[in-house]
């Protein structure tokens, strides 16, 4: 390919992107001038607390109004974890790790309980304070990740077997669906918590908001296990 052709191709690509940018600018500018309606979110804000019993509206949207999306994304994580785990080599590969000082090792051991507490807090208080299953799950996933980084892949795999992780993950996902099915058994629809009048309690307390805390827990378990699996598989790849 000649140089002229290269340069032409480069400028052609730049032109394409510039066109796209200008077009988007134009469109967004158009959109700014429109009056926008938000009655759905206004209804959530005004009625949401009574309807779902959760103070954290994001949680109530994620786990109650649009719980089905959450199921979908949980499935996506599970699929990604499964994909990575079958793409990772079966045999343990020697991960390239450096020797850390004693400080690191000790700190990790000390940190772990705090991480557990923090994660559990985020999960269980997800419906009354900032947080929720995803965040908590990520925090919980930090633990095996840290262990893997410092003590090496073999050690962490010994501590927490890959099978157990995928078992946890499956339990999380299945639990989510089973909790949703409770709604059907209560004579309402799938994933119904408020509608199937499971005790919403009075907002702001720990035991309130019907199914939401338990759904949070399931998602937390699932995300934690999934992220840990993903990380370990990637480490094994390297």
């Amino acid at each position, binding site marked *: 390919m000649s140089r002229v052709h290269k340069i032409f191709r480069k400028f052609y*690509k730049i032109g394409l992107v510039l066109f796209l940018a200008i077009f988007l600018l134009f469109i967004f500018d158009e959109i700014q001038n429109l009056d926008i309606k938000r009655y759905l979110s206004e209804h959530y804000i005004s009625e949401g607390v009574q309807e779902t019993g959760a103070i954290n509206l*994001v949680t109530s949207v994620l786990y109650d109004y649009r719980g089905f999306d959450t199921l979908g*994304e949980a499935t996506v994580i599970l699929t990604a974890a499964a994909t990575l785990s079958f793409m990772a080599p079966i045999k343990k590969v020697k991960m390239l790790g450096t020797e850390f000082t004693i400080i690191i090792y000790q700190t990790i051991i000390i940190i772990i309980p705090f991480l557990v507490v923090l994660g559990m807090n985020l999960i269980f208080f997800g419906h009354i304070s900032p947080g929720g299953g995803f965040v908590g799950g990520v925090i919980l996933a930090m633990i095996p990740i840290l262990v893997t980084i410092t003590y090496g892949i073999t050690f962490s795999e010994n501590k927490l077997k890959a099978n157990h992780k995928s078992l946890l993950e499956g339990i999380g996902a299945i639990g989510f669906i089973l909790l949703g099915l409770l709604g059907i058994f209560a004579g309402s629809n799938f994933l119904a918590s408020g509608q199937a009048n499971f005790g919403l309690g009075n907002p702001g307390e720990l035991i309130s908001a019907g199914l939401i805390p338990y759904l949070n827990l399931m998602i937390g378990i699932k995300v934690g296990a999934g992220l840990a699996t993903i990380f370990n598989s990637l480490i094994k790849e390297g």
Partner: protein
Amino acid sequence: MELPYVVVIILFCLGIYTIIMNKNLIKIVVGVNIVESSLILLLILISFKLGGTAPILDRKYELVVDPIPQALALTAIVIGGSFIAVMLALVIKIYKRYGTLNVDEIRKLRG
């Protein structure tokens, strides 16, 4: 027109440019990441109201930002994250098999 939207557009087009311009697989994945973050930023922006508090109604509030886009953003983040993970795993595999990261040399399938 507010500045943040311009930022969104710049990030979006920057990501697209990275994807179609770069030969390096890792850089392509980075470009994908940039585009996703620009979209998430867009989600956050459209939920923004001036002077609104976070949608956690435990104290007195006058104005609350729109909770739906934040929930959507959370979903989008998770989906995007798992996509990036799979992409990186594939990149590693490709690097092992083909011994290169140049996208133009990965052409066992053609015709």
